[in-house]
């Protein structure tokens, strides 16, 4: 197991490097520099700015410098767009926000999704089952950029229960709508996977045996059926997590939460190379880490897997 973890981490390093080089090349070849504006800058002004950010150096030197400062000092450089701040500032501010509502969405999606799926499977073909399936498919197909304004209309404008946006350090009132909007579609997927997985498990011989022995259903489910049921759900969590980070774009736009999603999109539109790079690398690193955690969990739960 340990060697597996080490091997995976060893792959992570070149992966991140590839990511850095790839995005650097992409941005380097982009038309439109970060300093274009409605009024073209006088050449001398542009030269000053480029010198300040080291953009006047040759390509290879820029990339080496960049990688060097990231690796040695964990310094992603200054933001081109937000002149008062560094990329580290931007990330330090936006990332905890995204992680916070991402975490709660994750928790909600998993707990509600799994319970819904299990309940539906146990009571297969009952009204509960149909309701759960209906709700989860409905939730899955309703895009969150439609759900978000609907939530706003209901909870902010009509009922006046919740603030329409902002973050305020992550107080609970500000968390509710982002978490609902972000978690529902994942919750629905998890419910569907759990349901079909549970149904399959309930039909296997060892569960039938357990039932035949006269063990109470609750005990059968908890003791025997849960573990194998959860495996396919686990393998879904990796992509789900990445999806939630990406989904933060929608959340930030509608709820003004100030997470990295909005920073990323704005930076992409404004050619803020350094912020784009910083966020891409960070999300890449997080993806690798999260996939690793999922794999380790998988191995821990499923004894059939050997590394």
């Amino acid at each position, binding site marked *: 197991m340990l060697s597996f973890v080490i091997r995976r981490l060893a792959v992570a390093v070149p992966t991140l490097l590839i990511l850095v080089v790839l995005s650097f090349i992409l941005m380097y070849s*982009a*038309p*439109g*520099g*970060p*300093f*274009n*504006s*409605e*009024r*073209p*800058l*006088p050449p*001398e*002004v542009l*030269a*000053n*700015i480029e*010198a*300040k950010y080291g953009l006047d150096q040759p390509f290879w030197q820029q990339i080496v410098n960049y990688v060097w400062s990231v690796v040695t000092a964990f310094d992603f450089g*200054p933001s081109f*767009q*937000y*002149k*008062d*701040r*560094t990329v580290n500032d*931007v990330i330090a*501010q*936006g990332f905890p926000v995204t992680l916070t509502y991402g975490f709660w969405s994750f928790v909600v999606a998993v707990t509600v999704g799994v319970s819904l799926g299990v309940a539906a499977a146990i009571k297969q073909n009952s009204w509960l089952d149909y309701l759960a399936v209906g709700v989860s498919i409905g939730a899955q197909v309703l895009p969150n950029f439609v759900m978000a*304004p609907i939530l*706003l*209309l209901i909870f*902010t*404008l009509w009922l*006046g229960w919740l*603030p*329409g*946006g*902002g*973050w305020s350090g992550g107080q609970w009132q500000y968390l509710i709508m982002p978490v609902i909007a972000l978690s529902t579609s994942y919750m629905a997927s998890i419910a569907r996977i759990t349901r079909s997985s549970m149904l399959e498990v309930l039909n296997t011989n060892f569960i039938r045996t357990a039932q035949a022995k006269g063990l109470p259903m609750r005990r059968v489910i908890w003791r025997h059926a849960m573990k194998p049921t959860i495996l396919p759900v686990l393998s879904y969590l990796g992509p789900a997590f990445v999806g939630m980070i990406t989904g933060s774009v929608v959340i*930030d*736009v*509608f709820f*003004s*939460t*100030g997470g990295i999603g*909005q*920073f990323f999109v*704005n930076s992409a*539109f*404004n*050619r803020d190379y350094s912020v784009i790079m910083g966020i891409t690398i960070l999300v890449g690193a997080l993806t690798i880490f999260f996939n690793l955690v999922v794999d380790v969990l998988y191995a821990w739960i499923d004894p059939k897997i050997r590394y």
Partner: protein
Amino acid sequence: MTLKTKLLATTSALLIATSGALYADGHATHPETGEPLASDQTFTYRDLDESPSIDPGLAEDSAGGDILRDLFEGLYNQDATGNLVPGVALSHEVSDDNLVYTFTLRDNAKWSNGDTVTAGDFEYAWKRAASPELASPYSWFIELMALENAPEVIGGDLDPSELGVTAIDDTTLEVRLTQPLPYFPQMLTHFTTFPVHQATVEEFGTDWTKPGNMVSNGAYMLTEHVPQEKLVRERNEMYWDNANTIIEKVTSLVINDENVALTRYLAGELDRTDVPAGQFPRLAAEYPEQAVSVPLACSYYYMFNLRDGAPEEIQNPDVRRALSLAIDRDIIVENVLAGGQQPAYTFTHWATAGFETPDIPKASMTQAERNAMAQELMTGAGFGPDNPLEIDLVYNTSDSHKSVAIAISQMWKQTLGVETTLANQEWQTFLEARSNGDFEVARGGWCADYNEASTFLDLMQSESGYNDSKYVNPDVDALLAEAKTADNAQANYDQVEMFIAQDAPIIPIYHYASVKMFAENLEGWPYENFQQNWYSKDLYKIAE
């Protein structure tokens, strides 16, 4: 809306001292109008996006300007109608050749830490803004001000200390220009000219704009700043005119989506927000006291690419005129935008100070006549149903630009049979394409730097860096050069507008309006300020 400028109040210090104390309790009245004031004096408004910077030297967008006018105070301020009123400077004198300005500063202006604001602070700020070291994207503004040695300093050929600005003593600032600029004092309300506190900048470096570090001299000071979420500024007790400040706390919230912002406005979370395109009539009917549309100093136009190598068809002025004529501007302003914008037949905004809109022939025709004339011109140019003109139209991504482009491409199609290919590009890509001449027809928008027609028409100069059409007409150049020194330039401007109508290097489409929702109890907004330069210190909320 009837709020008079603070200039009046500054002369009677006694009045200020007595009335100022009253604001503390909730039953105060406005010192001039006598209206009862609300106990809650906070102002919360929507910003589209996070501003790139709130450092006066580095700031570059108008939303950042709104914030900076609260936090800092320049030599002059604008009043509710856009006229100059004293800021840190009380008055100035100009030399006979109009090249040397000497400003007399007030001696009671204070920084938020209690230091006195001196002429040296301005000298430092201007030299800093021009220095290659700061590399400000707005250092071109210092060049625009025609300060002595500005290009050389920005280019790094001369030390910033050579810039044409000198503090003679603490209250006297001397500024030397390289050419006479009649509108120079107007430029001093711009944020690039605001003073900065040298000791603070040097102590904290780029972190000096963070709350807690920032020392400012405006009516407000920065208390909280969460990028992409909000920026809060509160009353600056040290401000020289603090006694007349009524709004206690100003919050700008970053809300990207204008519909979300409107929802939150209607839920009572905001005091000011933007009206989405096309929604003004409905909102004005439903909330007549709150939906407001006032002229804004910007013009919206389409430009043709007149460079060598650009498509042959659009080099024909008849084709360009036909395309211009076929646009039904009334539909654009009344139906598509519906926010009180005005149809444009001239490039210069109709509400520009001292500008009389000349009589452009097509302006007085009916659309049917214009369409007939356009069809005639197109046929004359050899285009018809069996040989339709095909053109590309690029615009930068935005819902309202999209709506305008869709409508215009259909007008061209329905009237002239022109096949238009629409392409929207991200802002930076768009700018690059436009300045490189990589387009056929492109959307353009231009906002006045100062309230005078030349701020628009100078774009038509052959050498202008902003002349993305690359329209070259020596007559226009001569007229514009002459206008710089003329006593009355209106005749020149008329002729330039005529040339624009005739040669159609650009198609003026409409003149902007600022279309907003304002909380019903918010008073003091400078609706008549053409550039919509507002100061929170002039606002107040009345009790309902």
